[in-house]
């Protein structure tokens, strides 16, 4: 059981990184990414192919995958936002994501098509014996999640983070204040893309086998669920949201052992109901998600009209 929890913990980690990427692009930057599954596939395939065909080691393959997805995302943002209004951006990402998935499905010479890529190496896979590898994989994933949260936290409190939120709230105001909105958006989407590349690489390392069916549109739904459950714009909240979604999905499998007499095909239906109810409850009782976006809080003045002496309090992000 402990091993299974550890393995699912690893799955939560790369789902969390994917959700963090979406949270940065959409939650903070206001750029809806409906092509997430395609970019995620691009990350996983890039990482796997850099290792299997390019001969890179896992570290450089991961960096390469992050670079490739960041570049593609940046280009999509650059091209799209120059020629269309931002409302069309979501539709374009959907199209690009689908294109990427179709390339993975059809370019047999490169991706082996529907059969998928097998035998994907893992970081330090040869050095660490198999029985303890899952612990290492979890530790590595946790460190990466923590690093992502830290980097994104720093980014969103930096001057650039203020530009990101300003662009989300009203791009005309941001432009009037002399900010380069297009360049900000390209960077937002590319930074998110790098994280998607990282999540994709971890996905490839974990499963050691990737095929196009793993990157269906349900991936997008889960990522949006994680961000909404966690609280749009809140990084730690998003990680918690990803964990909650995964626990709901995998944990509901154990419902069979709590409810005797439930058949497996009935359980399949019950699980979907449980997940639906979970989301509805969340939206009723926590409409803003688990946490709220980072906001600098200014001290309140007391009844005498004097500022309180405490320093400004920062809400957790």
């Amino acid at each position, binding site marked *: 059981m402990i091993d299974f929890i550890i393995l699912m913990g690893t799955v939560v980690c790369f789902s969390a990184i994917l959700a963090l990427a979406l949270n940065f692009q959409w939650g903070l930057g206001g750029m809806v990414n409906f092509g997430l599954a395609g970019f995620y596939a691009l990350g996983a395939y890039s990482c796997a192919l850099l290792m299997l065909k390019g001969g890179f080691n896992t570290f450089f393959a991961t960096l390469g995958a992050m670079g490739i997805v960041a570049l593609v995302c940046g280009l999509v943002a650059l091209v799209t936002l120059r020629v269309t209004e931002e409302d069309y951006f979501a539709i374009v990402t959907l199209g690009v994501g689908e294109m990427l998935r179709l390339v993975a499905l059809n370019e047999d010479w490169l991706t082996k098509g529907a059969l998928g890529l097998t035998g994907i190496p893992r970081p330090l896979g040869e050095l660490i014996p198999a029985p303890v590898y899952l612990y290492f994989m979890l530790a590595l994933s946790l460190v990466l999640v923590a690093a992502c949260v830290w980097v994104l936290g720093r980014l969103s409190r930096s001057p650039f983070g203020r530009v990101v939120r300003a662009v989300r709230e009203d791009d005309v105001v941001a432009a009037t204040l002399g900010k380069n909105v297009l360049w900000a958006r390209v960077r937002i989407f590319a930074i998110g893309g790098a994280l998607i590349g990282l999540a994709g690489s971890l996905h490839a390392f974990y499963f050691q086998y990737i095929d196009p069916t793993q990157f269906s549109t349900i991936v997008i739904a889960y990522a949006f669920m994680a961000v909404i459950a966690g609280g749009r714009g809140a990084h730690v909240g998003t990680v918690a949201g990803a964990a909650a979604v995964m626990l709901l999905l995998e*944990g509901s499998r154990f419902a069979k052992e709590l409810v005797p007499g439930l058949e497996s095909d009935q359980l399949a239906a019950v699980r979907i109901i449980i997940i639906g109810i979970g989301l509805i409850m969340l939206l009723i009782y926590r409409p803003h998600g688990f946490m709220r976006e980072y906001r600098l809080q200014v001290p309140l003045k007391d009844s005498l009209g004097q500022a309180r002496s405490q320093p400004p309090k920062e809400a957790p992000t």
Partner: protein
Amino acid sequence: MKGFSRRRMLKTIGAAVAAPIGAPFLNLAHAQGSTIPIGVALPMTGNAGAYGPDMGEAAKRTVEMINKAGGILGGRKLELIIEDSESSASVAANLSQKFINVHRCQALVGYWGTPEGMSSRPIAIQNKVVLMVSSAANAITEGNTEGYVWRFQMKATDWGIVISRATEQSLGFKSVGVMGLQNAFVLPIMRVFEERMKALGRTVVESLVYNPEQPSYRAEVQRVFGKKPDAVFCFGLLPDFVSIMREVYRGGFDSKVVALSIAADSEGKFVNAVGADVAEGIRHFQPMPDVSAPGYKRFLKLMGAPADRVYLFPPNTHDQIAIAALAMEKAKSPMAVDWSKQIIPVGNGPGEAVDDVIGALEMVRSGRNVNFQGAGSTCDFTPNGDQIGRGMGQWIIKGGKSVFVEYAKP
């Protein structure tokens, strides 16, 4: 939301985390008892959702029968853990991890589709656990599986051999068009079929691979049927085949159509979706059990089904559990490291041919050699885990009903 605090959030998340994680501990005793757990991953939802429930029923009845007769290894009962693979590779991989790490299964059975089998293959080999799949793609058993991966299905290239032979011998088409779904098990069928057709001097007027889940297949249909071949071979699944046949009917093309039964029959769903007129005259092929074999007749009795019922996949699930039980009994061990080596001895023989699991178990217990004859096939395997001896059926749709034509082996 001024009252919101980190503590409160932690409480909320803590409760969410604790409930599902804690749940299995409540019921852990059964996993540590003397039962032998078998993990069964079946498609209950998703694009192959039609097949899971019957396969699950077959697994349950087989295990019930073995347990009623006293179990295996000196009275230990088999215990099934049936889960929904959602017809998805990543879900199947998570399930395999759950079977191995939570339930301590040494046998993973079911695994209908190729993605499910492919994603669980490395997990089974790494954990030294036997994986028994019902998927067809050749890649499942290629390379070094260390004796842990076993296919209970005809491999894809053999489908191509049987279909091309039937085309040559009884159907007599001079020119053919080929359409195939972009799918890991369809492409090898297409490749072999086309090679054979060309070798026999038949013309392949057009061959194309199409993507799943397209809103329309008009262009594809036009390209293949427009060349007016005698017949078009369409290798796909139910949803795409339904759209394709609607386009063919609308376009008024008169080439004959040949398909796979998982598309053109699918437990009657195809005719229900398109109507008897559109379906009229379509031929379809699918690996099937030898319905005249005593093992299959015995299986029908076990399922309580009428004598003319043709089950495509549930007999394989029955055979997977039967072979696992027999191999465990022969190896005198529930550990896959030991019993995986006994799969060929109990499946291929040498020994007396037996089609009754209980009888076979008794013979193994008394030290005699058996050659188990299953419900879905004769349960003979190549050393790398491919099943041999499973045949393919051919049907033709007449008046909205699939009429059986013939049964052939590769």
